[in-house]
C-alpha cells in the first residue's frame, strides 16, 4: 500500500513522504484509507502549486463518513428500486423496463462500493482481510455487471456473468455487516439487518437462478423481502454515518 504514495507529486513526497509512510506502517490500510490516499494524491496534483506557495484552490476532495453515508443512502434506494422494477416487469409482463432496471442496479453497485469503502475505516483496523474481501466482492460484482450488460445483447450466456454481478454484492455486504456489527463502528441494528437481508436475498437468488418460478408466491416474497431488507439496511447505515459526521463538540466515543 505504500506504493500508492508514488501517485503523489515528487515535491510532496520529498516533504511528507516519510511521515505518511510511517503512518501506513503503523495502521492497517483498508479501502477507506486507499480511497483517501487516492483523493489526496489527486488533490496534491491539482491544488498544490509548489511547497511554500499559497494554494490558489481552496476547495478539495475528501473521503468522509458523510460522503459514504450519502452514497449508502443513494445506493440502497437504487438497489431496492431496481429489484422492484425487475419484479414488476416479470409480474406485469413486458421487457422495456429491464434495461432500466439493469442500469439502476449498476448505479446502485457504484454507490454501494463507494459507501463500503467510506464506512469501513474502523472495521479494517481489526479485520483488514474481511473488509478487503467484502470490497473486492463488491468490485467484482460491479465489473461483472458492467461487462454483462452489453454482452447480453449479443449472447444469452452473458446472463450468467450478470448473475455473478448481482450475487457478489450481497455476499460482500454480508461480510461487511458482520465486521461492522463486531466492531460496533456503526449502528449494530443496521449491520445485523444488512447481514440478514443479504442472506435472505442470496437464498432468493439461488432459488431464482435454479429455475424456480420465482415471481410466484413464496419465492417472490423471499426475493422481495431480502432485497428490500438489504436496501433498507444500507439506507439505515447511511443515515447513521451522516448523523455521526457532525461537529465534534457533540461528542461521541471511538468504536470498540
Amino acid at each position: 500500500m505504500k506504493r500508492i504514495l508514488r501517485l503523489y507529486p515528487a515535491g510532496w513526497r520529498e516533504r511528507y513522504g516519510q511521515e505518511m509512510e510511517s503512518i501506513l506502517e503503523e495502521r492497517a490500510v483498508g479501502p477507506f484509507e486507499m480511497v483517501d490516499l487516492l483523493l489526496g494524491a489527486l488533490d496534491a496534483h491539482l491544488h498544490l502549486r509548489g511547497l511554500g506557495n499559497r494554494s490558489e484552490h481552496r476547495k478539495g476532495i475528501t473521503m468522509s463518513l458523510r460522503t459514504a453515508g450519502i452514497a449508502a443512502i443513494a445506493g440502497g434506494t437504487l438497489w431496492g428500486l431496481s429489484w422492484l422494477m425487475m419484479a414488476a416487469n416479470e409480474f406485469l409482463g413486458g421487457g422495456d423496463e429491464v434495461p432500466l432496471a439493469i442500469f439502476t442496479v449498476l448505479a446502485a453497485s457504484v454507490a454501494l462500493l463507494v459507501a463500503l469503502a467510506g464506512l469501513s475505516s474502523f472495521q479494517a483496523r481489526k479485520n483488514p482481510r474481511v473488509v478487503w474481501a467484502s470490497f473486492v466482492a463488491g468490485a467484482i460484482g460491479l465489473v461483472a455487471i458492467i461487462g454483462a450488460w452489453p454482452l447480453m445483447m449479443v449472447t444469452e450466456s452473458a446472463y450468467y456473468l450478470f448473475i455473478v454481478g448481482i450475487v457478489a454484492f450481497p455476499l460482500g455486504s454480508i461480510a461487511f455487516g458482520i465486521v461492522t456489527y463486531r466492531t460496533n463502528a456503526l449502528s449494530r441494528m443496521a449491520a445485523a439487518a444488512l447481514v440478514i437481508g443479504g442472506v435472505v436475498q442470496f437464498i432468493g437468488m439461488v432459488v431464482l437462478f435454479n429455475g424456480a418460478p420465482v415471481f410466484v408466491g413464496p419465492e417472490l416474497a423471499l426475493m422481495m423481502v431480502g432485497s428490500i431488507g438489504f436496501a433498507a439496511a444500507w439506507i439505515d447505515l447511511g443515515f447513521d454515518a451522516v448523523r455521526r459526521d457532525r461537529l465534534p463538540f457533540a461528542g461521541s466515543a471511538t468504536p470498540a
Partner: protein
Amino acid sequence: MKEAKIPELGRFAEPALLILVSLSDGPRHGYAMMTDIEESTGRPLGPGTLYAALARLEERGLIEPLPPVERRRPYKLTAVGASVLHEQLSEMQSLASLGLQRLAQSSA
C-alpha cells in the same frame, strides 16, 4: 500579514479545525493527531486528508513543523494559529450560547 481564516480552506476547513484543536495542548506528529481526533470525534481521518489539511495550514502559517524524530515529524501551533483557533472557537461558543439562551427562553 492578513490572518488566514479556517473557513477559507473549503472542504478542508473541518479537518483543519480539528488539527488545530489537537495541537492546542502541545506538539503532535501525524499519527498522534489522527488518533487524538478519532478518539475525540468518533470519525475516521485518513492520512490523505490529514496531510492535505496540514499542508494548507503550514502554507498559511498556522502551524509549523519541528525537527523529525525517527521519520515522525511533530507539528506545533504558531502564535497566528492559536489566535485564529481562539477566534474560531469563540465564534462557535457565542453562537452556541445564543442558541441555548433562545431555547431556554422559548421553553420558559
